């Protein structure tokens, strides 16, 4: 760093010695520990605390001169890393940002400088020269945002006139012979052993052509016999070739104040000791000579400097934002994401996670199916989940509905839609969940009892339309058939992907609804339908078309493109009506084997994910059971139309079926009526019996025809 420029500048004869300042280095563990200390020990205590850092003289060239504080900085008596020198510091942790700002930095520095000066005067620094290398750390920890404000100071006493260089800095290997260097290394190791350390911050030195002797500073009087030229060694963390590091600064003040008048020349060895790939070397150390200015004993404390500049080079504090690694909510989010990415990195490289994660899911029903679907969506990292339900949590629910607890049933029970949101947020705060406690109007469940009920129904319809518009995928997870009718119609009209799951006692169906082609082509004619087919050669166009384009019989079970797939109601020959009337309790409630909802809920989500991975999405050709042996259409495998499961046999099949042109929910005539008349049409459906929809779609006619056919059959039988 900048060593070139400094070297170039070192030619003028009357050069003053310049030092490389410390640059603070904090380990991640330090901030974690400061947080713990603040929360558990310090709390509101702002009094100064002793802490500890260290510096190292073995860095490769180019690294800044660092003073490092790690996790263990708060254990002042703890060990220092091997071959490192300790530095003691004072921590001022303020309670407010304001206190941090208004703290008198100059006073702090002067106080610390005075202590160093006093220890020099008293001789204490001679005995324990580590006193010379101190630091101040001023902090404010904003533990709500995990923002840490800090400012380091490395106090250094100054000579008013600077320090004159007599002999330019040179690399040790240019001044010392190989033999001397070896002797120097040995002498240093011996000194360390004698002192019981692995690093000595300062030492005295004498040498001849082939010997080197070392002694600690306190042995000055006995060791130094000739004060014409004295050699001192400093453990030097700097890597610049022309400058010593900061620790030398206060040592020179000590020398000047203790012996300044007696010393002629001081030779300084910046001892640098590096090991690369197991090979140790010290020959890159720096050696130079200076003339120390006078600094009379008992004079006033010299001027001091030392506040660290911030990254902008200004005299100001630093701030580090650690929310990403300390805020538990952020941690949960990145862990969840990372887990999903692993699936991609390791198993399914072409998996498009963003498509899944960014999908907005509307869950109609927050019961057994809704709870399980929501949990599986969370597992996939889906962030946007909205519940619609009108029920309250009852005592029987929590054991089967994993988002609720016993407590939720008390006092009449909480609303499911909102309780589910609360629980999702508890499970994963990063989720963007919403709950709507509302009813979905149903065919055969009249809404025209009063003005109020009618306008309520209208509001509900509008709300549902809005919700479906705002989401990408609609899950139908209700417990009655007829409640699925309205969202089926709306979603078909808005071309939203619908995933439907329904349970029997030990059977289930999970299916995607056919996704109609864009509105422009619809209604023109059935011919237009096939021409806009977005699936390629594999679509029904390759099969011999039947006389009526709407019934290509040969492709009934294979290669049905997504836009021709049926919906939940396509297979029915009766319109949905009030299924709760005239039924026993076990028929009204879904009574199913308890594992069924988890299986079906999970499959519904996995089906959605597979659909999303297909390049054509909801228009993807339906895979069938026969495709199990073929090359799968997506990185995750098949994209079936339906999964029908039979728990008694532990078996699933993958049927596919065409949209039915007389379907009571998705046939063109129903959609047409809905789109033209809106709520008027819908309220007619709600208020009427079956026959309204059946008449509209032609089902009534179909029934009559079928009955006629049956009569024929019967008469045949009779004839036998």
């Amino acid at each position, binding site marked *: *760093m*900048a*060593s*070139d420029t400094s070297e170039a500048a070192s030619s003028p004869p009357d050069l*003053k010695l*310049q*030092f*490389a*300042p410390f*640059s603070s*280095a*904090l*380990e*991640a*563990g*330090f901030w*974690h520990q400061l947080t713990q200390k603040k929360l558990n020990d310090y709390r509101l205590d702002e009094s100064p605390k002793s802490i500890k850092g260290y510096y190292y003289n073995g860095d*490769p*060239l*180019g690294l*800044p001169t*660092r003073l490092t504080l790690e*996790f263990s900085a708060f254990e002042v008596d703890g060990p220092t890393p*091997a*071959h490192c020198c300790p530095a003691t510091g004072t921590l001022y942790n303020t309670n407010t940002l304001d206190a*941090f*700002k*208004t*703290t008198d930095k*100059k006073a702090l520095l002067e106080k610390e400088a005075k202590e160093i000066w006093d220890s020099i005067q008293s001789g204490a620094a001679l005995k324990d020269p580590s006193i010379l290398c101190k630091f101040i750390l001023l902090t404010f920890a904003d533990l709500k945002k995990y923002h840490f*404000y800090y400012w380091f100071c490395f106090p250094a006493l*100054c000579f008013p006139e*600077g*320090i004159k260089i007599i002999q330019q800095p040179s690399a040790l290997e240019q001044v010392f012979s190989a033999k001397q260097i070896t002797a120097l290394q040995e002498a240093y190791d011996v000194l360390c052993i004698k002192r019981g350390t692995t690093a000595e911050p300062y030492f005295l030195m004498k040498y001849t052509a082939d010997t080197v002797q070392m002694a600690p500073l306190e042995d000055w009087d006995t060791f130094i016999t000739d004060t014409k030229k004295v050699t001192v060694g400093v453990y030097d963390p700097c890597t610049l070739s*022309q*400058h010593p590091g900061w620790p030398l*600064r206060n040592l020179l003040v000590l020398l000047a104040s203790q012996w300044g008048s007696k010393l002629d020349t001081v030779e300084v060895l910046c001892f640098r000791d590096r*090991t*690369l*790939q*197991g090979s140790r070397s010290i020959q890159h150390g720096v050696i130079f000579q200076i003339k120390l200015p006078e600094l009379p004993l008992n004079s006033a404390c010299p001027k001091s*400097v030392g*506040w660290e500049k911030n*990254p902008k080079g200004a*005299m*100001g*504090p630093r*701030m*580090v934002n*650690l929310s*990403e690694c300390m805020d538990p909510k952020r941690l949960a989010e*990145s*862990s969840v994401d*990372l*887990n999903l*990415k*692993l699936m*991609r*990195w*390791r198993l399914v490289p072409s998996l498009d996670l963003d498509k899944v994660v960014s999908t907005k899911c509307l869950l109609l029903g927050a019961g057994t199916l809704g709870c399980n679907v929501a949990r599986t969506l969370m597992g996939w990292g889906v962030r946007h989940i909205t519940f619609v339900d009108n029920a309250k949590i009852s005592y029987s629910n929590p054991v089967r509905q994993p988002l609720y607890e016993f407590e939720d049933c008390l006092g009449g029970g909480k609303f499911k839609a909102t309780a589910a949101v609360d629980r999702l947020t508890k499970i994963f705060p990063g989720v963007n969940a919403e709950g709507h406690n509302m009813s979905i109007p149903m065919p055969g469940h009249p809404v025209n009892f009063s003005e109020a009920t009618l306008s309520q129904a209208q509001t509900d319809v509008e709300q549902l339309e809005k919700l479906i518009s705002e989401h990408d995928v609609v899950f139908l997870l209700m417990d009655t058939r007829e409640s699925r009718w309205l969202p089926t119609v709306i979603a078909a009209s808005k071309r939203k992907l619908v995933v439907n799951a329904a349970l029997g006692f030990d059977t289930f169906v999970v299916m995607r609804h056919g996704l109609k082609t864009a509105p422009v082509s619809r209604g023109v004619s059935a011919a237009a339908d096939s021409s806009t087919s977005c699936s390629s050669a594999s679509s029904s166009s390759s099969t011999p078309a039947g006389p009526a384009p709407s019934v290509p019989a040969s492709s009934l079970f294979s290669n049905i493109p997504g836009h021709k797939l049926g919906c939940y109601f396509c297979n029915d020959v009766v319109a949905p009506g009030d299924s709760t009337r005239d039924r026993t309790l076990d028929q009204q409630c879904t009574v199913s084997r308890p594992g069924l909802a988890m299986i079906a809920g999970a499959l519904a989500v996995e089906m959605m994910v597979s659909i999303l991975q297909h390049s054509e999405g909801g228009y993807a050709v339906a895979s069938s059971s026969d495709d199990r042996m073929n090359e799968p259409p997506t990185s995750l495998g098949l994209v079936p139309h339906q999964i029908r499961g039979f728990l008694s046999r532990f078996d699933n099949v993958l049927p596919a079926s065409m949209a039915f042109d007389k379907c009571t929910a998705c046939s063109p005539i129903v959609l047409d009526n809905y789109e033209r008349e809106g709520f008027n049409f819908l309220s007619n459906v709600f208020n009427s019996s079956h026959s309204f929809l059946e008449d509209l779609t032609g089902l009534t006619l179909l029934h009559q025809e079928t009955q006629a056919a049956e009569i024929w059959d019967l008469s045949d039988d009779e004839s036998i």
Partner: protein
Amino acid sequence: MSRGVLDEESFRLCCRLLLQRSEQLRDGWSWKAVQGSEEGYLRKTALRSVVIDPSPARDQEGSGSDSEPRTSCQSCPDQQGREKEESALVASVDTDRVSGAIDDDEDDEDDGVCTVSGGSSQVLQYEYHILHSCSYAAPVLYFRAFTQEGRSLTLEEVWSSVHPSFRLRLQSSPLNTISLQEHPLLGQPFFMLHPCRTEEFMRPVLQAQDQHRPVNYVLSWLSVVGPVVGLDVPLKYSTSPGSSTEPH
């Protein structure tokens, strides 16, 4: 041990031998004991100076084949570190608001300080821990990387500092799965190389070992997994004449 697994006692023995050698080689490993228990871990820190491209459009993580690395990195940086770096990894410091700066008219001139150019290279600190996993009966490598301010890097950021050739290997290699885990002894978030395949790749190493030159499980394992996350294991560990590496 030849089954490819490592019990806790052997783990500690291997660590002790590794430490001895590390001390001789000054490789920087140290043993951190957990207070009041036998448990502990090996720890080492390393520094890397990184030069960052001024346009760090954070690419889609993963696929790896998509683009050239935007970050160049050397573990033994020489003078190149001087190149201008942009503050992609530096937390956006908005400390101007927080001035509280020193109103120093007389302090402004410290002619005893050498000017270190402000645009120095970004220094990243890496911290590596080796722990023993009881359930996998294997050593586990935990690591994190952070800026000089102590801000931990995200996996994407660590990723960009991994040498490109290793990046590919990290994705395709069955050895390694990185996940974000709480350090079992410190309770702080660390990245972890999952040990699920360790036994698998260690078994042949152990079966091939020579009677006369026994294998230090932890050392051999480390030489496989370490380089993937920038942790070098000097060859001198294995060419040691003095110390035996046999844990039995």
